[in-house]
Each structure stands twice: as structure tokens, then as C-alpha cells.
């Protein structure tokens, strides 16, 4: 009998603290599969963020440094520059990467830091209580936009992947989702490519993953999962926005 699917080795055999239906668990698993695939478990150092992904160190069987809110790319820069032979990735949510840590991610990308970034976009601040994030959709109700996000007051949802893809330092930029088996396959492939980008020294590998937050959206897991295709993908189009090959590397 052949094993078709089992828990990746890099994922510690324990329960996640995430809410039912939250995609963080799925994305953790995809990252762990990439760590196993490239056999970098012994040489990986992650820079964890603040938010629901804060307990990364409990779930991955690797070394993890906990960063101040939004500063994971700066911490990862230091780790990678001091230890260029290590594999370094950051895992950040949208409140962390696209709000508090905007400066850190943009400059790390612009410097072409050779790190891998997993950006989890669920259009809301999760752990802190469902406040509006820069990625919150127009009309979306959150605890700080109780009448729905209004562009006149709050601006528009920010598209990080498009923004970072234009920076020369970024070697790979893609946006994926994990709401269906087909999207999951593409998400797995994109995360693998972002890992390969770092291993081949081609600059920052950036993957944005569209993800649910059933609790803070006030939805059940199935309904929240459907919202990704219905509302998020039309505004945040999926796809590979940049993929450097060796020949066009400056």
C-alpha cells in the first residue's frame, strides 16, 4: 500500500489553535511540504510575525525567531545576511505585512533580500479582534468599519503582490488561493517556486495566499470558503506576476 497523503515531517504532530475552517492550517501544511520537498528542515530559520501566525514556532519543526509586529522581513534580512547558507522564510498576515510592516517588506523587497515571504491575506486583522486592515474589501464590515469599508474615508484595498512585483529585487511574485482543490495545487506549486527562488539566489520569493477568517467575517467555514471565489478573487486576481529566470537577472 502506498501513502498518498500524510502529515509532512516538518509539521509538529500537534493540534493547531486556529478556528474551525481557518486556512492558516492549510497554508502551514503547504509550507511544511515545501520544506520537506527541498530537504531544508535542518537549515531553515523562519522569522515569525504577530497575529494568528504567531505560534509558528510551536507548529514547525525548525528554528524560528519571533519578530516585533510587521518587522519579520527586517529580522529575516539580518538572519540571512549573517547566515547566507541557511534557508530563511517569513510568514506574515495582512495586518502585519500590509499595514504595520509596509516599510519593512517594501525595502526588503527593493534590496532584493534573498528570502522567501509567505503573505496570508484574509482581509482582516484576525487575532486582535477583527479590525479593518488595508486589504479589507470595500463594503466589508469589521469592528472598526461597522458600516462597511468606504473608499472616501478608508481608501481602497491594497494589492501587495502587484506592488512588489514591479520591484527589481523581487525574483518571484504570485497570488494564489486555497479555497478549492484546483487552487490548492497551484498554491503548492507557487510556494515551491518561491522556495526555489531563494535556493537559486534570485532575490525575494513572494507568495500571497488568499485565506478565510470565518470568525471575524461572521460566517461558517463553508460560506467563508465560498467568499474567496465570489468576492476576493475578482479584486485580487490570482496568477504569477513575476518569475525571473537566470538569464534576466541583473
Amino acid at each position, binding site marked *: 500500500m502506498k501513502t*498518498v497523503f500524510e502529515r509532512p515531517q516538518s509539521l509538529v504532530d500537534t493540534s493547531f489553535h486556529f478556528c474551525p475552517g481557518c486556512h492558516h492550517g492549510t497554508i502551514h501544511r503547504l509550507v511544511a511540504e515545501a520544506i520537506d520537498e527541498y530537504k531544508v528542515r535542518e537549515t531553515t530559520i523562519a522569522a515569525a510575525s504577530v497575529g494568528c501566525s504567531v505560534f509558528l514556532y510551536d507548529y514547525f519543526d525548525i528554528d524560528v525567531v519571533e519578530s516585533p509586529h510587521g518587522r519579520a522581513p527586517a529580522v529575516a534580512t539580518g538572519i540571512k545576511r549573517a547566515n547566507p547558507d541557511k534557508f530563511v522564510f517569513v510568514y506574515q498576515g495582512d495586518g502585519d505585512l500590509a499595514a504595520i510592516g509596509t516599510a519593512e517588506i517594501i525595502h526588503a523587497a527593493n534590496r532584493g533580500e534573498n528570502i522567501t515571504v509567505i503573505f496570508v491575506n484574509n482581509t482582516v486583522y484576525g487575532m486582535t479582534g477583527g479590525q479593518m486592515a488595508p486589504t479589507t474589501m470595500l463594503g466589508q464590515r469589521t469592528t472598526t468599519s461597522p458600516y462597511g469599508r468606504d473608499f472616501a474615508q478608508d481608501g481602497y484595498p491594497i494589492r501587495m503582490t502587484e506592488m512588489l512585483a514591479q520591484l527589481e529585487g523581487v525574483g518571484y511574485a504570485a497570488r494564489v488561493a486555497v479555497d478549492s482543490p484546483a487552487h490548492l495545487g497551484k498554491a503548492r506549486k507557487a510556494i515551491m517556486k518561491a522556495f526555489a527562488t531563494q535556493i537559486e539566489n534570485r532575490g525575494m520569493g513572494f507568495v500571497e495566499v488568499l485565506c478565510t477568517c470565518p470568525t471575524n467575517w461572521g460566517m461558517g467555514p463553508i460560506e467563508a470558503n465560498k467568499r474567496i471565489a465570489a468576492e476576493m478573487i475578482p479584486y485580487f486576481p490570482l496568477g504569477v506576476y513575476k518569475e525571473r529566470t537566470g538569464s534576466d537577472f541583473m
Partner: protein
Amino acid sequence: MPRLTIHEDRCKACGLCVEFCPKDCLALSDKFNPQGYHPVELVNPDECTGCAICAKMCPDVVFKVEK
């Protein structure tokens, strides 16, 4: 025949596996697990093809699939 191992204690009854199983093999049971959720169970084992879509959709890595 494929073998589906379900780690019931980890299940949070989100129902994504039930929703995406192409053969409707899975359902949430009536019993409770230690976390207080109704864990998923295999109700239609003969139809299971071992496609592992349930395992891939599961956010809590509840399944192991062999075939």
C-alpha cells in the same frame, strides 16, 4: 481498496472535507471529540477512491490516505 485514517481528536468539524468529497463519502458524526466538535467519519467506504481531496482541503491535517 484505499485506506483513510482519520485523526478524530484533531477534527474541528469545519466540514470542508464533506463539502469537497466528490463521492460524498464523508459526514460529520453525532459523537463528540475531546475538543467538543462532531468529528468527521467515513460513512461510505466502498465509494472512496483515495483521491485525497479531503486531506488536501482539511486545514487541520486530520487525514492520512493510503491506497
